[in-house]
């Protein structure tokens, strides 16, 4: 039994990270209706920047928040320079642009930092020793991940619910034309959406780097699982993204352990099988709203 609880905890920690990156994907999808294939690599690059700062002697939390702020501006710039000018062009064109973002950051990171894995430390002040509670080991770092995810969710919720900018962003996403009429600058709101998403992605990157190693491809697998989470929860639902992340995390952790056939190699297959199954019954994800098209 304690083995089971242990697995559930580990799965939840993975799931929190998937959920965080999925949240970034959802934020971009809500504001611009783009699935950003470059999200993971943007996060990877921000994590490398944080590593550089740490390497230069900046204290952990300083580097952590600096990287988040840099990522935020990186998101703004990418939207303004690469995505916004192509507004209104075919969906496929924009998919290619985001694949370009993917390739670009991946290659630049490899070029600057080389492929040699770097060690990214766990946050300062978090004990390395696990706590034992009734035969179950609780890793303090996992608790940190949950805490950061929770705080971030609350901040985002408060931002979208109680601030004027948040309201404007929701309006711009839901009714672009009407929002323009009441004086909201829709492009600016979209840009902000990209910035916030990039910041959330960077957080996911920096939280997952200590668990896996930091190398230019480390976000690729996480991105795939995050796509799965975002789709599972519904691409336009932030809560769905986090929920989807936890489900995907648990399913891969438990499935890998208890279904012999799956093992460690086929976890990703299991996650995807689950998603296709869910999509068959709810084509817009668990919490997504199906789009009604007028003919």
């Amino acid at each position, binding site marked *: 039994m304690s083995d089971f609880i242990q697995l559930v905890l580990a799965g939840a920690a993975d799931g929190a990270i998937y959920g965080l990156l999925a949240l970034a994907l959802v934020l971009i999808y809500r504001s611009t209706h783009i699935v950003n294939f470059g999200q993971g690599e943007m996060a990877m690059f921000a994590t490398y920047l944080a590593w550089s700062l740490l390497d230069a002697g900046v204290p952990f939390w300083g580097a952590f928040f600096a990287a988040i702020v840099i990522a935020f501006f990186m998101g703004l710039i990418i939207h303004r320079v690469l995505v916004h000018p192509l507004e209104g062009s075919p969906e496929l*064109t924009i*998919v290619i642009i985001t694949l*370009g973002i993917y*390739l670009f950051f991946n290659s630049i990171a490899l*070029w600057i930092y080389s492929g040699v894995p770097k060690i990214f430390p766990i946050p300062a002040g978090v004990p390395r020793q696990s706590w034992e509670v009734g035969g179950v080991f609780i890793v303090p770092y996992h608790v940190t991940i949950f805490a950061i995810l929770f705080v971030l969710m609350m901040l985002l919720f408060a931002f979208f619910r109680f601030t004027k900018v948040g309201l404007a962003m929701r309006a711009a996403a839901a009714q672009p034309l009407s929002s323009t009429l009441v004086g909201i600058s829709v492009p600016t709101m979209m840009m902000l959406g990209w910035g916030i998403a990039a910041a959330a992605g960077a957080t996911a990157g920096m939280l997952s780097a200590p668990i896996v190693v930091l190398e230019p491809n480390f976000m690729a697998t996480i991105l795939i699982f995050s796509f*799965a989470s975002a789709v599972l929860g519904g691409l336009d639902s932030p809560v769905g993204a986090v929920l989807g992340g936890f489900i995907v995390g648990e399913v891969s952790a438990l499935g890998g352990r208890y279904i012999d056939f799956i093992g460690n190699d086929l976890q990703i297959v299991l996650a995807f099988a689950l998603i296709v199954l869910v*999509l068959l019954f709810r*084509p*817009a994800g668990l919490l997504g709203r199906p789009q009604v098209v007028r003919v």
Partner: protein
Amino acid sequence: MELVRRIEWRRNWFLVGLIVGALLYAFSGPLDDLNARTDAPGSGLLSLAGPIGVGLIFFGLVGVLTIAAAQTLGRIAAKSATNRRLMQGLGAALLLLAFIFLPWYYDIFPYATLYKLTIALQWVMVIIGINLLTGYTGQISLGQGAFFAIGGYTLAIASFHEWSLPWAVSLLIAPVITGILGFLVGIPSLRLKGPYLALATLALAVIIAPIAKRFEEFTGGVQGIAMFGKIRLWSIFADHADYFWYYLSLGAAAVMLLVVWNVMHGRIGRALIAIRDNEIAASAMGVNVALYKTTVFGIAAAFAGFAGAVNAAVIQFASPDQYSSLVSIRVFVGAVIGGVASVPGAVFGGLFTQFIPDIAADVSKAASDAVQAVILIVFMYAMRGGFAGFVVQTWHYGRRGVQLLRPPAARRQGQEAAAPASAASPSGSE
């Protein structure tokens, strides 16, 4: 000064491209020297002048030639439908001839080898399928690489690993198997739209390699299945295996192009376009949306499967490493860059998929993927409808009449008022 201001820069950008490209190319030698002599940061950018110049000249030439063709041939084609069909046939025949005789003159192109061209033709086959699927029914599939892999493994397993069927038979079985699989995958895909479908198909691309590793007894696991020297061609071809595979790929790609072209210009094509533009309206008109969509999924998968089988035969190997999700993404990018609802665009897309990594590596060894990314992004900026879209646009511009100079300010107002009426008439005749 007045003259410079009156030139229509935006519409005639390929002229600008030609001039700037020629200048960059002319100065690329001295700039390279300068790069070699200085250590200043960013001086490496100087060495980019040559490649950028060549690229600009290439597209400038394409633009100018298209306009020239539109002005001369376009007139003849517009006279009657027979003329037009004749010229389209002639164009296709010329393209085919160019490819048939390619083995004799391919070495004038940089990077080209017969082997790479053979593989490029296999990408063309996959891309024709994507064209059909995405361009004509609007279903995005990021999973064609999975069918490509299944095709390759079908050949390897059926002929060399588990059973020992003649390889030619396996080559024909592969598209049948992938076609059926594609049809089956198409059924659940009916419920998914846009990004959901894209991600569900991406799942296929991602899981194929782990699955191949897992079923070791069939697929040879991580090591894969080697077929070196085991493929025996009929004795007449035995000494010219590379030519044999080139022409086989060319023949197959040509047949696929022909089939798709004919299908698209008939009843089925109109039904598919109706589905892409408005599914509900199409079904209200009596189009069996589900049947068409799943069938197209099956056909696209069969094309990819056949390409994969030929590919495995050419490289004589099938292993999980060569079927990573990157394959799916690369062909998808090639399809979009070529122009997604266009049959000839597939040819450009296939060549692009094969040769762009070489070109990028030539520009910068250290960050070749970054160069590739920049090329992709610039491409999508300049040509939103892909290469084929660009040619079509330039062609229409050429047909309407090239305007090098803007009319003088005094006359312009009168012309603008008349513009809607005059713009409507030429487009009506096409």
